C-alpha cells in the first residue's frame, strides 16, 4: 500500500520535473520583446522551418541574471532584447557567442551590429518630440530645446526609471558631456507640465486631453495609433505634430531591438537560422507592419503607419557607448530631481 503510494508519488514528481529541450527541431528563446503581435513572427518561422519555438519572456536584466545563474546548462539558444544597452550588458557578461553568417553580414547594416558579431539589431524606433499643433507655434527642434525656459509648464515625459529615457540621456552624455547633460536635465525638469507618470502613450494622450503641450515618446506608440484605434489618441491625432530632433546635428535618438546566439546554446544551428530569418524581408516587413517599428535592414518596405511619420536622420552613435553611460545617466537624472 505504502510502496504503491510512494511509487505513484515518485512518478508524479518525475512528471513535473524539467525535461531538457534538446531535441532536434527546437529553438529556445529568451526574449524581453513583450509584444503580443510577435506571435505571428514566431509562428511563421515554425511554419517555414518546422522548428518549434519555446519561449520565456521577461525583463532583460532578469533574463540576464537567469542565464548567468544557469551557466553551462542554460537552455537558451537566442536572447532578444528591446534596447542595445542590454545587448551590451549580455555581451559583457559573456552570454553571447560570435556568429559567422554571410546572410546577417550582408543584410544588417554595420552600425546595427556588434563589432565582434555577438549581437545583431533587427528593428529600431526613434525617440522623438510630439506637440500640440494648436498651442505650440515653434516646437522644440532639438532635445536640447526641451530645456528652453520658453517651454515652462509644457513638457510631459515619463519617469527616469524608464529605459528609453536612460538611453536618451546616455546618448546626450556622449554628445554633450556629463555636466552639460545635468544642466539640461535640471532645466527639463523645471519645464515639466506634471510629475512624470504613465507610459509613452500616456504622454501622447496628455496632449489630446490638454494637460501637455509637448511630449517625448517612441515613434511606434504614435504609429500604432495611426494603424489602429488607441483609446484617447487615435480620434484626435490630427492635433498632434511631431519633430524628428537634432536633424541639423547628431540626428534623432534611436533604440535598437536585437539579439544574439547564447554562449551555451544547445541548438546553435537553429539559433543562427532564426536570426537569419529575423533579417529576412518577410520578418523585417512584419516588424514594421505588426509593431510599427523601423526595419533595420535597408530597403525593406515600411508599413503605411510608419511611412506616414516620414524620413529622418538617425543618430548613429555606437550602442556600446550608450550602454556604458546608462548608470551615469540614471544617477544624473536622480540628481536633477527627475522622478
Amino acid at each position, binding site marked *: 500500500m505504502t510502496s504503491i503510494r510512494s511509487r505513484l508519488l515518485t512518478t508524479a514528481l518525475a512528471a*513535473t*520535473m*524539467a525535461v*531538457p*529541450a*534538446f531535441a532536434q527541431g527546437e529553438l529556445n528563446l529568451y526574449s524581453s520583446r*513583450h*509584444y*503580443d503581435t510577435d506571435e505571428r513572427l514566431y509562428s511563421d518561422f515554425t511554419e517555414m522551418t518546422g522548428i518549434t519555438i*519555446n*519561449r*520565456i*519572456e*521577461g*525583463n532583460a*536584466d*532578469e*533574463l540576464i*541574471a*537567469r542565464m548567468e*545563474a*544557469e*551557466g*553551462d*546548462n*542554460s*537552455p537558451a539558444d537566442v536572447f532578444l532584447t528591446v534596447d542595445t544597452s542590454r545587448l551590451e*550588458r549580455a555581451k559583457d557578461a559573456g552570454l553571447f557567442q560570435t556568429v559567422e553568417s554571410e546572410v546577417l553580414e550582408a543584410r544588417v547594416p554595420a552600425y546595427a551590429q556588434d563589432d565582434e558579431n555577438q549581437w545583431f539589431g533587427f528593428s529600431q524606433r526613434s525617440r522623438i518630440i510630439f506637440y500640440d499643433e494648436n498651442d505650440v507655434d515653434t516646437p522644440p527642434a532639438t532635445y536640447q530645446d526641451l530645456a528652453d525656459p520658453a517651454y515652462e509648464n509644457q513638457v510631459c515625459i*515619463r*519617469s527616469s*526609471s524608464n*529605459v528609453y529615457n*536612460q538611453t536618451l540621456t546616455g546618448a546626450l552624455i556622449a554628445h554633450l558631456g556629463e555636466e552639460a547633460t545635468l544642466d539640461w536635465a535640471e532645466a527639463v525638469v523645471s519645464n515639466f*507640465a*506634471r*510629475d*512624470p*507618470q*504613465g*507610459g*509613452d*502613450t*500616456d504622454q501622447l*494622450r*496628455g496632449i*489630446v*486631453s*490638454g*494637460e501637455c503641450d509637448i511630449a517625448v515618446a517612441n515613434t511606434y*506608440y504614435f504609429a500604432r495609433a495611426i494603424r489602429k*484605434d488607441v*483609446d484617447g489618441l487615435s480620434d484626435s491625432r490630427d492635433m498632434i505634430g511631431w519633430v524628428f530632433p537634432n536633424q541639423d546635428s547628431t540626428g534623432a535618438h534611436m533604440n535598437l531591438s536585437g539579439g544574439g546566439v547564447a554562449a551555451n546554446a544547445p541548438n546553435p544551428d537553429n539559433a543562427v537560422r532564426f536570426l537569419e530569418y529575423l533579417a529576412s524581408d518577410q520578418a523585417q516587413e512584419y516588424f514594421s507592419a505588426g509593431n510599427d517599428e523601423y526595419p533595420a535592414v535597408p530597403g525593406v518596405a515600411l508599413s503605411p503607419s510608419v511611412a506616414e511619420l516620414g524620413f529622418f536622420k538617425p543618430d548613429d552613435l555606437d550602442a556600446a557607448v550608450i550602454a556604458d553611460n*546608462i*548608470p551615469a*545617466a*540614471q*544617477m544624473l537624472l*536622480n*540628481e536633477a530631481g527627475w*522622478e
Partner: protein
Amino acid sequence: MDRHFISGVALLVAAICLLPIGGVVAAALLGNLDTLRHLAETVLWRYTWTTLVLVALVGSGSIVLGAVTAWLVVTTEFRGRRWLEVALVVPLAFPAYVLAYAYTHILDHPGIVQTLLRDVTGWGPRAYWFPEVRSVGGAAMMLTLVLYPYVYLLARAAFRLQARAPYYAARSLGASGTGAFFRVALPMARPAIAAGALLVVMETIADFGTVAHFGVQTFATGIYTSWFSLADRAAAAQLAIGLLAFALLLAVLEQKNRGAASYALKGRQAPFSRTPLSGGRALAAQAVCGFPVLLGVVVPTIALFAMGLRSEQDIFSPRYLEFLHNTLKLASVAAIVTVSAAVVIGTFRRVHPNRVSTAALYVGRLGYAVPGGVIAVGLLVPFAGFDNWLDARMEAWFDVSTGLLITGSIWLMVAAYMIRFLAAAIGAYDSGLATVTPNVDAAARVLGRSATGTVRSVHLPILRPSLLTALLIVFVDTVKELPATLILRPFDHDTLAVQAFRLASDERLTGAAVPSLIIAGLGLIPVILLCAQVAEWRRTSVAAT
C-alpha cells in the same frame, strides 16, 4: 519520534526560506557602498519617506475598513448582510496593479470623469484642480482596497470565535455598544487584526506593480532601479536588507504584542447572536459594508469590461486556455504546499516553544516583505548552482546529463511562492491556533494522542476555517503573483498575470483588462467555496448545540 519529524520538516522549510535571504545578505556584503552613497545623497530619503507614508495610509485604512466591516457582519443583521459578508472578501481577488489600470482609465486627465467634468463646466484643461490618481494617495487607495480583506478575513474569524459573554458583561456594566466594541471585543481580536495588518504592511512595502504604474518611487522601486538602471545588484541587495529589517521589526513587535496577553477561550462559550438593525442604522451598516465592495469590485469590474470589450484578446483561443491551465495548476500546488508548511511551522512552535521554533516562525514570515523578483533571483542562484553541480557529477559518474533538474521545473516557482506567501498562511493558521487553549493539547496528549496526532485529530478539525482561509489567500495571491513567475517560469509556462503584464508593458491596457478580469474571476471561485463551506459548518455546529 514524530515530534522529530515535525521539527525536521519545520527546519527544512525555514532553511529554504533563509536561502534567498542569505543570498541577498551575501550579495549585499560583496558589493561596495558607492551606489548606496549616491542614493543616500539624492533619492533614498524620498524613497523611505514615501514608503512610510504609504505604509501608514494603507495600514490604518485596512485596519479600519477590515475590522469595522468584520464586526458588523458578525454581530449585526441587516438587509443585504449575507451577500455583503461574501462580497467583502472579493477585492482580494484583484491584483492592486489591475485596480491601478482600471482607476487610471477612469480618473486620469484623459479619463471619463475628468473629461465629463470639463465638458459640463467648460473649464480649460489645466484650469482646475483634481486629485491625481497617479500619486502616493492613489497608490494607497488601490492597495487598501485590495489588501483590507486580509484584516477583514482574520478579524471576522476572530470575532466569530470570540465569546459573547465578555462583550455583554461590558454592556451590562454600562458600556455603550461602541464602547464595548473598542474596549472589549476589539482588544480580544487584536492578534487577528494585528496579523492581518502585518500582512497588509508587508505586501505594501513589497509592492512593485502598482507603484511602478503610478510612477510613485518607493523603496521597492529603488531596488529595481539600482539593479537595472545602475547595474549594481549589490546595491539592490543592500536596499532589500533595509526592507527585510523593517519587516522583521514589525513581525517582532506583532509577536511581542500578542505575547503580552492570552487570547485563548477558556471553556465552552456561546458565540455572538446578531443584533438586528433597522432604519438609519441599517442604512449606515449597508453603506459602510457596501463602500469597499463598490470601489474594490463593482467600479473596477465595469471599467475593465468596458476596456476589454474594445480589445482583440480572444479568451477562447488555445493560448488563453493554456494560460488558465498554468495559472490554476501553479496556484493549487502552491496553496497546498504553502499551507502544509505553515501548519508544520505553527505546530513546531506549539510543540517546542523555544528560541529555535520562534526563529523559524519569524524566518517563515520574512519573505512576504521581499519583492518577488529579489526572492526569485535569490533562489535561482543557489539552485542553478546545485543543478549544474549535479549535472557535472552525473555526467562524470554515469554519463547521464540531468540538465537543470530543479531550475527548469515548476518546483522552483512553487518554492518561491511558498517563501513569498508563507507569512499569509502562517498568519491565518497561527492566529487561529492562538485561540485554542493549550489545555486542549494537554487533554489530547493525556488521552494518548501523539504530537502529530493532536494536530491531525484536534487542531486541524477545529481550525478548518483558518486553514481554508489560508488556502484561499495563498491560492489567490499565487494567481496574482507576477515578478517571481516572470523570472522563474519554465518554457511556455505563461500565466494570466504574465499575459496581463506583457500587454500592459506594451501599453495596451485595454488588452490587459481581459486577463486581469479572468484573474479576478478565478479569485472568486475559492472565495465562494470558502463562504459556502463556512455557512455549512455554522449550520452543523448550531444543530449540535
